[in-house]
């Protein structure tokens, strides 16, 4: 029996080593989309110089449509990055946050609340953890583009996104104004237990790194409701974090004729500017804005800003 246990252990150790080794080969050697990195814009934070990002934004497409780091830079000189991806799930949010903390020490982390209600199952949570440990699982599909260089080159994640994770859209598609935040004052949309646990893990990670977690709901007629507001507010109180709901009547003057790019689902650029201005005010209140504009170490931000301005002006 002992012999069998020993051979099984040896087999498993060998397998784990093999998978780790394969991970080294399959892992993209650069953090660009062309090199095969998944969610390149969100992973662009890995290319930012160490400890240069003051504020982090997490969430799904609502987040990358609403928070404009370059607007914050222009207005305050403070740096920020949007680590958001389409249909993001909380376990992936958590992974992106942990990755960001390996190089950065943001003071404030904003979580766009829509992810809190996105259904997560245990299988997805497990495979995200597994993917963390063995990157071959995440990047196995690169066999299609693998070259000899993947065997010889070392990892060099130095690329960063000029927009810092924000996605600029010129589209404007008006939404028919509705009182989407009306409804039962006490109704509360239930947050699944697994999602709650993941959110608490997220809060703990922020606390461990000395960052303040803030939950924020950006205006979205299609995604938000009074019941969701109540559900998130209760959870925010439970874990002791601030919650700002920009859907709440009177919080932000959103013009649904011009401030949405797709009939009330996501913000248009003008809507995003309003949301970002609101965030700047809250950050100022928290005294979490540092002006880096005169610091030569932040020269790449000036250059990126100029490029963004030029590109968006076209």
């Amino acid at each position, binding site marked *: *029996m002992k012999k*069998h246990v020993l*051979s099984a252990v040896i*087999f498993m150790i*060998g*397998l784990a080593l*093999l*998978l780790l080794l*394969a991970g080294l080969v*399959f892992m993209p050697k650069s953090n660009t989309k062309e090199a095969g990195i*998944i969610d390149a814009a969100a992973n662009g934070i890995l290319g930012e110089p160490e400890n240069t990002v003051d504020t982090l934004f997490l969430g799904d497409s609502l987040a990358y449509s609403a928070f404009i780091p370059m607007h914050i830079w222009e207005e305050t000189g403070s740096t920020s990055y949007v680590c958001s991806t389409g249909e993001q799930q909380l376990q992936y949010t958590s992974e992106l946050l942990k990755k960001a903390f390996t190089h950065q020490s943001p003071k404030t982390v904003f979580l766009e609340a829509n992810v809190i209600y996105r259904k997560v*199952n*245990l*299988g*997805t949570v*497990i*495979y995200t953890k*597994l*993917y963390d440990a063995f990157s*071959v*699982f*995440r990047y*196995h*599909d690169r*066999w*299609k583009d693998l070259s000899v260089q993947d065997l010889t080159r070392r990892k060099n994640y130095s690329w960063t996104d000029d927009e810092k994770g924000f996605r600029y859209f010129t*589209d404007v*598609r008006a939404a028919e104004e509705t009182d989407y935040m009306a409804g039962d004052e006490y109704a509360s949309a239930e947050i*699944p*237990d*697994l999602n709650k646990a993941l959110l608490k893990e997220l809060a703990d990670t922020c606390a461990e790194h000395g960052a303040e977690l803030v939950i924020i709901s950006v205006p979205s007629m299609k995604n938000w409701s009074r019941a969701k507001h109540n559900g998130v507010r209760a959870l925010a109180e439970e874990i002791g974090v601030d919650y700002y709901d920009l859907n709440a009547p009177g919080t932000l003057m959103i013009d649904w004729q011009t401030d949405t790019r797709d009939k009330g689902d996501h913000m248009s650029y003008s809507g995003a500017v309003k949301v970002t201005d609101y965030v700047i005010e809250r950050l100022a209140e928290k005294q979490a804005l540092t002006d880096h504009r005169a610091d030569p170490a932040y020269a790449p931000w000036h250059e990126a800003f100029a490029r963004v301005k030029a590109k968006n002006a076209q």
Partner: protein
Amino acid sequence: MITFSSYFDTAFLVLFLPVSVAVYMILPRQNLRRVWLLLCSLFFFWCDGKGLLVFILLSTLFMHHGGLWLGKLQNELDAALTDLPKEEKKAVRERFKKRKRLVLAFFIALELGMLAVLKYAGFFVNNLNGLMGLFSSGTRFIVPHFLLPMGISFYTMQAMSYLFDVYRGKLAPDTNIGRLLLYMSFFPNIMEGPICRWSDTAESLWNAERVTYERLTRGAQRILWGMVKKIVIADRLNPFVQNVFGGYDVMEGADLLHFDFTAYPGWVVALAAAAFTLQLYAEFSGTMDFALGLGEIFGVHTPENFQRPFFSLSISEFWKRWHITLGTWFRDYVFYPVSMSAPVKKLTTRARKKLGNRFGPLAGGAVALFAVWIFNGLWHGAGWNYIFFGMYHFTLILLGNIADVVMIRFSEKTGFKRDILPVKLFRIFRTALLVVLGELFFRAPTLRQGFSMCGRIFTQFITNQTVSRAAWGVDWKDAFIVGVTAAIMLVVGLLQEKGKGIRERVSEKPVVLRYLFWYAVVLFLVVFGAYGAGYIPVDPMYAEF
């Protein structure tokens, strides 16, 4: 909360499977291992549908009570016969036979009733409404939509086979409802079968033997092979099959445009039908490898469900090699009883007189075959395309049976040899083509679409349409890797056909070679599997039936 969409779900593979096996291994007593297996099975079922667990419990209860009642009647009959004079025995037997039939019919109705209501009620009400519409009746019934308990078609058939066997006196009824429940709910078999028989499986399941190193490794190896089939082939083909059969969307500017199969020339539709057939085989047989491998670990005798079906020379042979446990179930509980029924026997006798001894028996067989295939079609799903699928195979088998008689005569007269390789290869290819055509109707969302797709193959095989990358859903590298894996499956199949098992061959090699071989298989699966970002795994196809 945990839900298991299939045995290939990460939560199942990384959590449920290792925990269920590891705890089973460390439990010292047989009773504890039985209870553990039962708990695991019920938990697995509960994760799927929570309240739906009640249906499998009810089904087991009916099976248990039905079996006991039938057994009691048999005992009463035996007691009554002991002191009776010979001339009265026949009458008593007849009386008890009627009572047993009534009891059997009652419990079969209960078992089938649950299946009929949950699975077929919507289909029948829909058709009833359609029929009433034809007669301009304003009355319409509300079409019910019920959630289907996982594996209901499979465990209902297991329950019915148990009741039939007790009725026929082949089995003694079991008094232990726990044993029956474990047999019904054993989690490796619940999702897609195989459909087990009590006499094959129940004892080994209840024995809950200790896991041996040999069984553990052999079972794990079979599971791994099943995963390769499912994740490398079935899941990788999914976007292409889904696009052609279900349509695909393309963003053009701000508009989302939908395209259906008419966006493809006929040859691509034919290719999709072939791809679906391969996908179905890889998914279903891969899941069977998983189920049988897991059964092997627990020491459970589970019947094989596939025997290299694409080496079949005829459709009839194909169905002896594909979903074997379903075929044998219909053979034993539909085909034989119908064939042996008085009206069919009479028909056969008459046909023999009129058509002779060669063609005559085919008439009675055709009636029984028709019954088998109408049920087979319906078993697969509540839809006209499934009924058509059943009738398609009924027609092919019937024609095949007639052609067989003709060919035998032809061979006798001309000396034509049917068992030479070129003829065999032709027959294999022809059978595969007919199977692929049938699968087109099986996969099409409606019978109408099935006919349209089929028509496109025959009338617009080549068109000037260009198929975009988005329309293909896969690229040439995907096709290449599917081709390589299918070729490996073919080689493995050929070796198995010759009685040479891969696992046995590998186990005879030195340890280093053994390890390298299995590392290579794992790495092949990890690298070429279609999972992760951008992939949607195919749902367990037979779990819906």
